[in-house]
């Protein structure tokens, strides 16, 4: 999902944990207790969370770029105001998540440095371009829809600060999906040209949306441990299926078709069956060879570098104010 690159090995020395502490930790997890920042936790649990929450935070922040692209070109003031609010929400979500990661002993500056250096991953979905206004509809409907599918179970994840951040995010995410679907609905009820635009966007976003859930369970190396620690509550494939089942009827209501000739409803299981996903594309995009990887990172670096003077000035101003207040206090004494 927003943290789909969990297959890579986590760097750092192997830590041999005290079996008694490990057992007590697992017992707390099994009893559905939340783990809080100062509680004892296995090093691997901490590292998994830092990486997962970090990737999630980076995805929110990079996710502002494809949509930001359309703020100045939104077709009406209503759409523009909504898109602006949505992009601002994504920035807020990034902040909640960085704050949650920081409770694990990593600083936001460190995490951000990893993103800008290209060392940390973010969701593959944001490396696709937003070519038309219908792409904004598709992102809200599909990308935020997929995100909600993944994030609702994360509201019950075992690490307290992460779970609390997810609760806030889920409350806000629902507006994102609805505004996207409304854009699609308006296009589909419009002229033939507008409907074609909606169809074209669905054709391009459908498969990348399914890839958001990450590699198939058979290739997902950390799923089992993450499920045992209740960081994850459902596997990648389970969430992907839930998403397809929820989304296909919505697309059919729009009068659109899905770019999958094998898509069919399975009467016996009640699930929508879909064709094979091109995992080589997923790996390529995640490894940096997607259509917009370079552009996205360049935009983040530019924003970071060009904002440096603002951060420096704010700190210098705060230091000056503190010094002035100190001098006044001393003078008054």
């Amino acid at each position, binding site marked *: 999902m927003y943290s789909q690159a969990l297959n890579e090995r986590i760097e750092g020395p192997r830590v041999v944990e005290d079996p008694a502490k490990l057992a007590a930790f697992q017992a707390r997890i099994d009893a559905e207790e939340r783990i809080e920042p100062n*509680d004892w936790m296995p090093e691997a649990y901490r590292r998994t969370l830092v990486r997962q929450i970090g990737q999630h935070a980076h995805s929110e922040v990079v996710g502002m770029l494809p949509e930001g692209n359309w703020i100045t070109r939104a077709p009406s003031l209503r759409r523009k105001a909504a898109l602006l609010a949505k992009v601002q929400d994504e920035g807020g979500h990034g902040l909640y998540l960085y704050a949650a990661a920081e409770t694990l002993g990593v*600083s936001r*500056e460190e995490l951000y*440095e990893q993103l800008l250096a290209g060392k940390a991953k973010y969701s593959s979905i944001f490396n696709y371009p937003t070519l038309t206004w219908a792409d904004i509809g598709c992102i809200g409907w599909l990308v935020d829809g997929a995100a909600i599918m993944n994030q609702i179970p994360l509201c019950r994840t075992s690490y307290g600060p992460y779970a609390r951040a997810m609760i806030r995010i889920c409350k806000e995410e629902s507006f994102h999906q609805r505004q996207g679907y409304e854009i699609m609905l308006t296009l589909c009820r419009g002229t033939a040209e507008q409907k074609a635009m909606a169809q074209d966007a669905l054709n391009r976003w459908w498969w990348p949306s399914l890839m958001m859930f990450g590699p198939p369970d058979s290739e997902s190396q950390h799923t089992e441990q993450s499920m045992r620690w209740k960081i994850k509550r459902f596997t990648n494939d389970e969430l992907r299926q839930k998403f397809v089942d929820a989304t296909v009827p919505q697309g059919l209501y729009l009068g659109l078709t899905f770019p999958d000739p094998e898509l069919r409803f399975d009467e016996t299981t009640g699930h929508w069956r879909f064709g094979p996903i091109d995992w080589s594309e997923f790996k390529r995009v995640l490894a940096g060879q997607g259509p917009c990887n370079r552009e996205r990172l360049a935009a983040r670096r530019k924003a970071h570098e060009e904002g440096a003077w603002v951060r420096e000035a704010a700190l210098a101003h705060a230091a000056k104010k503190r010094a002035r207040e100190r001098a006044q206090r001393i003078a008054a004494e």
Partner: protein
Amino acid sequence: MAEQPMPLWEVFIRSRTGLAHRHVGSVHAADAEMALQAARDTYTRRGEGLSIWVVPSAAITASDPAEKGPLFEPTASKIYRHPSFYEIPEEVGHM
């Protein structure tokens, strides 16, 4: 040049009159005034609050969860602090 770390602030919000301020998360900001503005933008985009407190994270002293046994022991052993410890005849009625 290595980035200078931005100070961390804990954010507390009163959601309605009559309720206490409640911890909602944290923000980074150079000073208290900017921390308040960042907290407003980050945590109250949908009318979640009537009042915000920001406190430098470094100013908070916390108890150690590993010591919670000895720390809270006095409360566990003093059951006579609870009303149910005292027996009142039923005829007396609700008390």
